């Protein structure tokens, strides 16, 4: 079977700015694939090319077996799309939007009348179906947005930052729904700037930075490749340089928040005692010390030399 999402050397320029700079993608049937990256990394631009909203400047992509440029209409019929910020007309009710979306996808109204309530129930919005969307909370909007993108039972689903700005509970319930859809066989392509989201949901992920994919693989494999755990310490400014010197004896420095020193602890957790002793001998006071098993955060930092905002 053809892979539902294939991109080859995708490039998109806006004037002088190269937003996407040669992206290759191969997503398998039934996979949850996450695109992880900071704001402005080019995530949304790639998604917009894959869902036919933007034309690639160079390269090509096939989605659900169709070329996104020459067979755009067929791509649109085959995919479900929930773009950033849940763009929904606030003057309409959930039921009305579901009906509109059905007709846009060519479903007869009679079928839409059955499918709409089913989907509302699925995302837990049955009671709010006749309320105007303007009265919905952020989480309810995202759930309705998801329901709308499912109206024609697409085999491939695109979710652009589906939980950005949501509270933890709403985020959890959206994750559960994505898992359920995936269990039913839907291929999901999602973008996120949350490490945890990629870690929780994705079978495979790609880290994108500056319009290029800098790492790709299963979260577990990527973390294993980092190998050593990360040791971070806080120490007063005056001792930071000497602390870095001492720590450098135990492993390679790693990027971290300003004001801290971090290394990949080469000997693993067993080497901790020695590190503490060495710091003590050098007379370096410790405000804080932590040791973390390799995380996606480390993978991201290793790939880009930076930390994702909000991580650590």
């Amino acid at each position, binding site marked *: 079977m053809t892979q539902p999402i294939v991109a080859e050397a995708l490039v998109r320029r806006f004037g002088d700015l190269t937003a996407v700079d040669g992206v290759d993608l191969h997503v398998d049937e039934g996979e949850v694939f996450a695109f992880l990256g900071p704001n402005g990394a080019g995530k949304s631009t790639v998604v917009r090319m894959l869902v036919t909203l933007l034309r690639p400047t160079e390269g090509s992509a096939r989605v659900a077996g169709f070329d996104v440029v020459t067979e755009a*209409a067929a791509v*649109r019929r*085959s995919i479900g799309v929930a773009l*950033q910020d849940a763009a929904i*007309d606030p003057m309409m009710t959930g039921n009305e939007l579901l009906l*509109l979306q059905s*007709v*846009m996808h060519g479903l007869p*109204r009679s079928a839409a009348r059955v499918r709409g309530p089913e989907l509302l129930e699925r995302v837990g919005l049955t009671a709010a179906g006749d309320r105007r969307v303007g009265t919905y909370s952020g989480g309810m909007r995202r759930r309705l947005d998801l329901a*709308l993108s499912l109206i024609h039972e697409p085999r491939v689903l695109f979710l652009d930052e589906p939980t950005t700005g949501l509270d933890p509970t709403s985020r959890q319930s959206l994750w559960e729904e994505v898992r359920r859809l995936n269990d039913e066989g839907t291929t999901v392509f999602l973008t996120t700037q949350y490490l945890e989201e990629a870690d929780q949901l994705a079978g495979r992920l790609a880290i994108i930075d500056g319009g290029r994919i800098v790492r790709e693989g299963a979260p577990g494999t990527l973390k294993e490749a980092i190998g050593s755990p990360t040791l971070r310490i806080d120490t007063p400014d005056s001792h930071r340089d000497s602390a870095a010197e001492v720590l450098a004896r135990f492993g390679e420095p790693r990027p971290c928040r300003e004001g801290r020193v971090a290394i990949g602890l080469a000997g693993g957790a067993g080497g901790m005692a020695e590190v503490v002793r060495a710091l003590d001998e050098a007379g370096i006071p410790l405000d804080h010390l932590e040791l973390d098993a390799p995380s996606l955060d480390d993978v991201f930092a290793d790939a880009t030399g930076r930390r994702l905002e909000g991580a650590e």
Partner: protein
Amino acid sequence: MTAARADDQSADDPSAVGAGMEPPHRGSVLAQAVELSRRSIRTSFRNMAAFIPGLVFPLMLAAVYSAQFSRALALPGFPKVDSFLDFIVPASILQSVSFGATAAGAELALDIEGGFFDRLVSSPVARVTILIGRLAGSAVEALVKSIIVLIVFFVFGARVDGGVGAVIVLLVASVLLALAIGAVGLLLAIRTGSQEAVNATFPLVFVTLFVSSAFFPTELMTGWYQAVAQNNPITWIIDPLRRLVIEGWSWSDAGLAIGLPGALAVLTMAAAVLGLQRKMASR
């Protein structure tokens, strides 16, 4: 550029693309247009804050004018008319319609700003139905407002000498003008994607109506004001409409009153469709 063309047509032949994972279904263009029209009609009536002023302001103005200017009827050169109220029937209707006539554009701009437009164009919808849907809302709103204004005028004693035919021409002309102005709004929305830009055109529409024969006959104007008013398309539409109201039925006036806004509407709608095609081709 062939790629651009293929992308623009949502209704291209599905059988031509056999490599897909599932047979994509073709949506009915008519059903899409109907559903999008329902949406814009529904939301324009839900947005009462925008609907009501378009009724209240022209009616208040009509009340003030007909109280103030009733003696103007005696001026030499003023058309023979039973009351000032009769004289401004077409003006008040068109003014009421002009309120909110650019709303189609403002709503489309909102859809573009908010991303709903992207939702629509990432579904297999025929692009032109997005514009049809928006204009349908404006047309129905214009019709309803015109009918309400007419009823209020009738209640206060206005008379349409051209009879039922003239009333129908009044309503058709107002709907066509709403379409013409609405399509300009759509084009602006497509070109700028900004609601502010579209809304900024309303004062222009508003002033254009005042610098016409709407509230005063051009024969009694002087200087540049007269020159502008005489060359204002609104005057060309208002004058035959008014003759239908105060003089009686005439086929030639009916033709002018419908033909002019009709031609304008065709032109501006064609421009909006072309504008949308260009926007889609240049993404």
